[in-house]
């Protein structure tokens, strides 16, 4: 469902992504790991054009989203995104956070949107927080609401950009559990993460990046037992 071809991205003189070629199939869960500054997040953000690629193609369902004539808003509706720092809308309560985009973008009725919001909140275990405002929630709760907000748009693909990196340690699990459930439900997902245990458990494929390049792509089992590249080996030695 996603095909990336010869993707390059530079910020000024600095090249942060160098010749990225990969694809994500429908229903596949891909985790992207690698050291800080390796271009993982930038790569993810190129998939919904929060970053404009410098060159190359990103095909979403066979449509090239780097084509300037394409309606990017339509594409983004199909791609949910969860951020490291949640980015809930602080002036809206949880219900409004979940219903605003479906009502504004997809023209859903209030009743329809609310019903779906309630279902999603139940799914992430926060039914009682319907009326709460984001700043009354814990980090883990905020991130679960953020996941529900993205799901409310009924996307085909979910992007997670270090979804647990800003959380207190004891809140990581509740968020990872939600993401795991989602993975098992057949959602297509790309997850940038530093949680190796999670990557090992849920991923169908690991993409290992370093210095703006994809160094290695392989199944989690073989990757964690014996990666092909020395770079991945030394990375795993440090983090495991």
């Amino acid at each position, binding site marked *: 469902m996603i095909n990336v071809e010869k993707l390059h991205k530079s910020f000024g003189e600095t090249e942060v992504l160098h010749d990225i070629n990969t694809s994500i199939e429908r229903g596949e869960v891909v985790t992207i790991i690698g050291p800080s500054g390796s271009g993982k997040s930038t790569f993810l953000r190129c998939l919904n054009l929060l970053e404009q690629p410098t060159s190359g193609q990103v095909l979403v369902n066979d449509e090239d989203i780097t084509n300037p004539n394409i309606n990017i808003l339509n*594409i983004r509706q199909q791609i949910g995104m969860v*951020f490291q720092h949640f980015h809930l809308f602080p002036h809206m309560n949880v219900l409004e956070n979940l219903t605003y985009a479906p009502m504004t973008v997809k023209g859903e009725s209030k009743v329809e949107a609310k019903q779906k919001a309630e279902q999603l909140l139940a799914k992430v275990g926060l039914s009682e927080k319907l009326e709460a405002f984001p700043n009354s929630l814990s980090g883990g709760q905020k991130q679960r609401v953020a996941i529900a907000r993205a799901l409310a*748009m009924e996307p085909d693909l979910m992007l997670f950009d270090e979804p647990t990196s800003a959380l207190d340690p004891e809140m990581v699990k509740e968020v990872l559990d939600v993401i795991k459930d989602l993975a098992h439900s057949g959602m297509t997902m790309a997850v940038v993460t530093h949680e190796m245990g999670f990557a090992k458990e849920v991923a169908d494929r690991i993409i290992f990046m370093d210095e703006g390049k994809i160094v290695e792509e392989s199944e989690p089992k073989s990757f964690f037992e014996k990666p092909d590249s020395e770079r991945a080996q030394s990375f795993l030695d440090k983090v495991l």
Partner: protein
Amino acid sequence: MNLDFSQIVPYIPFMLEGVWVTLQFVIIAIIFGFILGSLIALVKISRFTLLKWLADFYTSIFRGTPLILQLLLIYYAVPQLTGYDISPFLSAILTFGLNSSAYVSEIIRAGIQAVDKGQREAAEALGIPYRPMMIKIILPQAMKNILPALMNEFITLTKESALVSVISYLDLMRRAQVVSSDIYRSFEPLLFVGLLYYAMVMVLTLIGKYVERRMRASD
């Protein structure tokens, strides 16, 4: 001590009337400045490079020269250049409105740009178009930064309005001078209008505090 407030008593209605005269053009100038300033702020956060440059240039001119110079230029230059005999009232509104718009545009631009970049990204990632994103997501949050600074700007404008006395517009300040020259006493009329200015500014300050409290309550 040679103080005699009884002498200004007959002039009190005349000076009080000055409050209304001052308020009249201050309110119009504030509204004019706010509308124009908002439009200029929109240009500043837009993608149109040339317009942005013009907006920045406009702002720097009005912030970079004395207000009294701007006032005199408009009052004297307009008749000289166009033959239109501009009234002190219109000059005052024009000068203060244009000047204030420069400051207001900066206040609004800075307020909008101070909103966490992630808010915009979250809205974009959900496929929310530009207009609803600005109106429903960015601006409500920017208001928290904008309103206190805007109240300050209005207070400044109210005080600076006394400058229009130099183009013989019969505002509050000018009336104090008229009374002085009538009774050969400066201190009493000046003190009296000083109190009136202070009262006006205090009312604005209280409104500002009330608005800020309301905003904080929604946190």
